[in-house]
């Protein structure tokens, strides 16, 4: 069997090799499966492999024979356990859906499989994407491939770690408050979240419906871009999807104006700041303009984000009641059955969010919390709109800290929520954002930087990342 160098492989390189016949789709997939075989036991990136890999491999190879292959044909990818793939167990890393086989495929899965992508398996996540470490998975934590005593981050930790540990070329996650960007930062790979509505959410189990975006992770910006371009575009199953021609009129620049909200960034750990400052220097040397700014409303975004997220979670998770699918615990009557099923099926963090969300939506409290947060969300959009009149991007570290040690965050949800301080803004406002690897701390831990752009300026983010050689 041909030996394939997976560590530095890109989708482009793999495609060229497949096209030239240097190796077959089977050989490429087997090379990755061999990595899964050897590393996954320790890393726990994949929860399980899919049962249709062999037939997908054949179909992809056939596309090369037919001349219908495109860049993504035959490319092995990971799929977050929260994105439905028909006939395959898609359990959101939750006991309540432990053996649930999806009855349909998400739009993104259909679109990628149509061009010959091969999804190898279901990747670990915090239960229903609620968390930033994957420690809230019912099926164990995903370890950080750089340092297995640390978390990979989350919630899309399984997808990120699978890419970082060479178990697939790219993967899909979802990003509700940083779930693709934060683990990308922790594991030293790239994560991209488009403008809200860029990619169909149909088939992605919702956490916060007005925040969620299906998002790609890969080692290289060009690879994430290839995946994003196939995924995005209007979908007749998602009314919140943007029209397919949204991106046509956007023009990339040679040099960009970048704003850094300094006082917010100051709250980061010293080791993060050190790597971040080097990256700022790199940007300046590349000829981009950097200015320090104050955006006071960013201090309130965490509060806005969590109030609204809790509210949406409480409603989005209510359908898991054991009546039609998933775990069902017998009870003495209907209500007892609901209580027992949901009590047994959900983990602590999901329960915490359901309770808080129910509270903020309750009569008498909705005005104080939910509606206030909605107003502030609009205010945030107004202020960011002003900001983006002057600047192309807003730059921060992706996370204020490096990947925490496993167990540190357990039982400390507030500290865990604080890790999202830089990432939640993009989801709350609906703007695109990218996290790119910028180097390691002296201790060898990856640190990512995040760029946010104005609504629909998704391509500019991928453009600068490519210009920077990411």
């Amino acid at each position, binding site marked *: 069997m041909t030996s394939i160098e997976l560590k530095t492989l890109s989708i482009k390189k793999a495609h060229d090799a497949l096209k030239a016949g240097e190796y077959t789709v089977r050989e490429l997939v087997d090379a990755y499966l061999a990595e899964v075989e050897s590393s996954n036991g320790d890393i726990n990136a994949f929860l399980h492999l899919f049962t249709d890999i062999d037939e997908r491999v054949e179909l992809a190879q056939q596309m090369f024979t037919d001349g219908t292959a495109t860049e993504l044909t035959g490319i092995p990818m990971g799929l977050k356990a929260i994105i439905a793939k028909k006939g395959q167990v898609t359990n959101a890393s939750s006991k309540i859906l432990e053996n649930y086989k999806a009855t*349909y495929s998400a739009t993104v899965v259909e679109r990628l499989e149509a061009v010959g992508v091969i999804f190898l398996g279901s990747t670990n996540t915090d239960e229903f994407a609620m968390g930033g470490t994957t420690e809230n998975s019912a099926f164990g934590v995903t370890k950080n491939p750089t340092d297995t005593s640390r978390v990979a981050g989350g919630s899309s930790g399984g997808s990120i770690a699978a890419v970082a540990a060479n178990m697939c070329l790219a993967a899909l996650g979802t990003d509700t408050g940083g779930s693709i960007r934060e683990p990308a930062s922790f594991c030293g790979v790239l994560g991209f979240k488009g403008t809200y509505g860029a990619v169909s959410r149909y088939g992605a189990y*919702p956490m916060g419906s007005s925040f969620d975006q299906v998002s790609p992770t890969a080692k290289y910006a060009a690879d994430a871009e290839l995946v994003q371009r196939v995924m995005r575009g209007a979908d007749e199953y*998602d*009314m919140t999807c943007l029209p397919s021609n949204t991106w046509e009129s956007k023009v990339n620049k040679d040099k960009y104006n970048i704003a850094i909200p300094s006082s917010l960034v100051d709250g980061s750990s010293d080791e993060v700041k050190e790597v971040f400052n080097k990256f700022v220097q790199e940007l300046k040397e590349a000829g981009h303009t950097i200015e320090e700014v104050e955006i006071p409303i960013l201090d309130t975004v965490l509060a806005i984000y969590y109030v609204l997220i809790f509210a949406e979670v409480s409603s989005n998770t209510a359908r898991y*009641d054991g009546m039609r699918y998933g775990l069902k615990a017998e009870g003495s009557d209907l209500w007892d059955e609901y209580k027992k099923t949901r009590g047994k099926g959900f983990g602590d963090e999901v329960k915490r969010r359901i309770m808080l969300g*129910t509270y903020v939506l309750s009569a008498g409290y909705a005005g104080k919390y939910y509606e206030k947060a909605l107003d502030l969300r609009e205010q945030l959009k107004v202020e960011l709109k002003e900001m983006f009149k002057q600047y192309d991007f807003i730059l921060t570290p992706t996370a204020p800290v490096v990947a925490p040690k496993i167990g540190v965050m357990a039982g400390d949800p507030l500290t865990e929520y604080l890790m999202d301080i830089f990432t939640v803004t993009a989801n709350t406002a609906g703007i695109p954002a990218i996290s790119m690897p910028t180097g390691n701390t002296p201790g060898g831990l990856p640190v990512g930087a995040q760029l946010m752009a104005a609504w629909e300026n998704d391509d500019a983010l991928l453009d600068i990342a490519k210009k920077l050689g990411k």
Partner: protein
Amino acid sequence: MTEIKDNKIIGKTTGKEYFVTIGLEIHAEMNTETKMFCRCKNDPFNSQPNTHICPVCTGQPGALPYVNKQACKNVMTVGVALGSDLADFSEFDRKNYFYPDIPKAYQISQYQYPLVSNGELSGVGIERIHMEEDTATSTHKASYSLVDYNRSSVPLMELVTMPVIHDAGTAMKFAKELQLLLRTLGVSGASLEKGEMRIEANISISTNGYFDGDFSKLGTKTEVKNLNSFKIVGQAIDFEVARHLAILEGETEGQIVQETRGWDENKQATFSQRTKESADDYRYFPDPDIPKYKFSDLPEFSKDELAKDLPELPWDKRERYGNQYGIKSEDIEFYLQNPTFGDIFDSASAELNSTDEYKKLSNYISSDMAGLEKGGEAGTLDNMKGKEVAEMVKMIVASELSSRGAKDMLLEMYKNGGTAGNIAESKGLIQKSDPEELKKTILEIVEANKAQADAYKAGEEKLLQYFVGQGMKATQGSANPGVLAQIFKEVLKS
């Protein structure tokens, strides 16, 4: 127990004045091709359970709603017909609660911004009409329950009246008129028996007067549900009014509590189903899966655009039938309720031009033709061409066709179709009124009935009827009896 005076009820025991207030909440399923938020067929009654289902209407993880535009148009068309205000801004909300028939554990409905506000029907003010989705259907067995999701997410409109109704009769009239309107507009089957239209009545009694915008003026209300005929709506309201009054007057023990009540057909009484300790907390919030609507940006939803497709509305039709044709109001209601007959009347009346003809036409349609349809004869109303029915009426007016002949002609048309002229000829239904031709026949009859002729001549004048009868027999009913009598008289005189 009580007496009604000046629209108020005077308590017999205490002499207090009571003011009855009734508000209606009426749900109607829209008869669109597909469901409200997915592309499943909207056919909840005629299929095997759980055959029109998909990830969306069974609440699979990750499935999202997609709004059925036609259903929204239907609701807004009802608004246009009622002279209501159509929303410019509107949104869908989630109404959160747990039950097996609501697969997402929330119903997509509208809370703050209904599609339609205000308007009036049958003299009753309307508060709002909003769009939502129906639930699945549950069947409860002894030890288990079955749920059929064919009905899950069928488009449903909910109309809420102002609390301005004061008696059961007005409530029933309103509900019937709404049913007629929905059917006329073609937006709903609106059958109460099938549950396509569901009526809930809110009943309260106050001693402070009627609703004037101040809800605190009203008494404690009870809500009566599952009223599956207009008659039961009336009975349940009357029962509740009497029950409230008896409590208020101190004639029976207990107190009025805010609750939902059902109707027990056997006992002819309402019964408590669910007590509302306080308002249910459905935690409404805007559904983030559905973009908000600004209808001024969507011309297809404009009042003018929707008004283009409006058929003739019931009240316009009543006025037209009354003014233009002068037909009986029973007939008018019959046509409104049975548009197939109304259509026959419309196309036939277009060929006629006197009130006498219109009335005759209407009589034949509403009694004879309706009788054929009811009587189970093998035939179809499709055979009844307006032009031919009009032709028949003209023949009757011209005394060419007897009423007996008309009935035969209608039956023939109903069975086999055909023109009035052809049927009259082939069945020999034309009344013979030519005196010369009839005279020959009559002379033969007189010749054959000498004894009777002599008796008549001797003064037994009632025998004229006998001769006319013989004449009808001889002409197989085609003679005009009046003309026959005239000729017999002349012949027998000589």
